[in-house]
């Protein structure tokens, strides 16, 4: 009964889209803050990240320093500065765990960024350009889906040697597939919206429309997926390091620390439990945050 006048100026439609977009983000933020698990996740996660970044500078022991006088020291030892004790080589466990966290989180962030860049570009181009380009790209993604990807990463690591930069590139190169599919799906639905047509009619180039109009609108979905990809990447890295195929000594990561700890499981379970606790806490937080974001940005899903 209140039909929309189809001849409403395109500019007005665009402004309306932008306005509703802004309040959408505010709404989402409010809903996120109302989600206790997500807020707790954010706080704990920031604490762990902060401790991992600056902690190693503040501790009396470096992650690879050996304290010959305190091997297998039991916590808490405030006098010696081994707050969480030492491992079988006399290295400070807290320093190692925080340093390992730095590496694990960094791999998580960098590999996810790599996946994000590849996935969003491929997805947005495939979805927006469509036609043969779309078919070609999506065929390739389909093909990649039938590759056993963990094996693929390991082969890359075997072939090119265990190189830190390569590892996050390899993981990123594997994790972009789902991102590409999601972004493509979103772009397809956006492509025919009025404000995109308006942008096209006013002579915007493809790249310009993708960057200025498509990307801001897929941001929500991408953010949800990013928070859920980071824990997967951290797991994959620790899985590789655990098998001895990831990070190499003297560097360390949570996966490696868990592997080291596993070797001393019977005599000193602490060396396994402490890094494992840090890692699972981080993964929990990221998952809660991801779920919270999804509920906040996509309220129909509850």
């Amino acid at each position: 009964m209140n039909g929309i006048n189809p001849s409403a100026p395109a500019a007005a439609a665009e402004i309306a889209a932008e306005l509703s977009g802004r309040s959408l983000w505010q709404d989402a933020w409010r809903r996120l803050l109302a989600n206790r698990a997500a807020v707790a996740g954010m706080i704990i996660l920031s604490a762990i990240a902060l401790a991992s970044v600056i902690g190693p500078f503040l501790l009396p022991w470096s992650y690879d320093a050996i304290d010959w006088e305190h091997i297998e020291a039991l916590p808490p030892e405030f006098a010696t500065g081994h707050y969480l004790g030492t491992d079988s080589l006399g290295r400070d466990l807290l320093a190692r765990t925080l340093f390992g966290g730095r590496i694990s989180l960094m791999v998580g962030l960098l590999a996810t960024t790599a996946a994000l860049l590849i996935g969003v570009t491929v997805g947005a181009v495939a979805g927006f350009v469509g036609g043969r380009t779309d078919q070609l790209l999506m065929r390739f993604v389909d093909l990649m889906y039938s590759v056993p990807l963990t094996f693929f990463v390991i082969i890359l690591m075997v072939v090119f040697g265990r190189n830190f930069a390569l590892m996050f590139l390899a993981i990123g190169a594997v994790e972009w597939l789902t991102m590409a599919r999601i972004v493509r799906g979103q772009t397809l639905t956006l492509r025919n919206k009025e404000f995109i047509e308006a942008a096209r009619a006013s002579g915007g180039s493809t790249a310009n429309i993708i960057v200025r109009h498509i990307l801001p609108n897929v941001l929500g979905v991408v953010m949800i997926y990013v928070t859920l990809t980071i824990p997967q990447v951290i797991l994959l890295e620790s899985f590789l390091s655990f098998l001895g195929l990831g990070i190499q000594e003297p560097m360390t990561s949570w996966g490696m620390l868990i592997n080291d700890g596993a070797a001393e499981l019977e005599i000193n379970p602490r060396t396994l439990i402490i890094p494992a606790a840090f890692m699972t806490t981080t993964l929990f937080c990221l998952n809660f945050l991801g779920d919270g974001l999804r509920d906040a940005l996509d309220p129909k899903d509850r």
Partner: protein
Amino acid sequence: MSASVLDLRNLSVRFTTPDGDVAAVSELSLSVGKGECLGIVGESGSGKSQTFLAAMGLLAHNGHAVGEAIFGGVNLVAADESTLNGLRGDKLAMIFQDPMTSLTPHMKVGHQLTEVLVRHRNLKSTAARDRAIAMLRRVQIPEPERRFEMYPHELSGGLRQRVMIAMALLCGPELIIADEPTTALDVTIQAQILDLIRRAKEELGTAVILITHDLGVVAGMADRVAVMYAGRIVELGDVHQIFNAPQHPYTKGLLACTPRLDDATASALVTIPGQPPNLQRLPKGCAYHPRCQNVMDRCRAEKPPLMSAGGGGLKACFLENFGRFQAGAVVP
């Protein structure tokens, strides 16, 4: 009142949402007589569907109904699931708006029909099959034996809605609630579907509640019409009275909106100014007052109760003798 099939008394429906509660239906009272066809008219969001979903016990999980909906001596609102299940599909049937999504996609049409008879009539499968095919024939589905073995996606929208009607009629219900039964269909099919419902009413003596936003649908079918706005009835009356002498400005607005081929003077589409109300922030007083052309000070302060409108009708409007001010419209 003894002649009524369904009696709604002070029925309210609320939904809990992340952004607060929404009152979809507020203290609504209404009764449907035996064999009567009652039209329920309103914009989307007026609560017309939720009222009867509540009576059927089919509200979404965040919905909650209070009040009474008396059917066959049972208060449906307070009844437990097994009591409701005994009535639903048997004495009380419902036809939904979208035949495309209202049939289970992975089950053959025949099975979806026979399971009703197995449930309520305890029929063996061959007997149920015969009854179901007979009913498909009755709703004028060609080649019913073949359709019986088909999946819903293999049928057209019109045929699917016929299957829905057949499903509703299988047990010879006392009341059929048809929620926008023709909205999703082609215009040519719409008339056929309405004709089927009318015939069911006449031949089986079934009472029909016809929920629609389309006054044209109501005009040809209903005996009485209730007009709803913002979860309340604003006008209730005989179909002729509603069309010829509407007593509420909203009814009048709705009538003016309906395009008419016979009216050469109406060159432009008329719309009711303003937006349908936000149920979470209803205006004080009469919910319609921000859009009403005849608004008075009293309307802003006080909620008008349902009062007699003369001629046996009811209206929720303070305006006196409103009907006299307008040219008589004719039932299309």
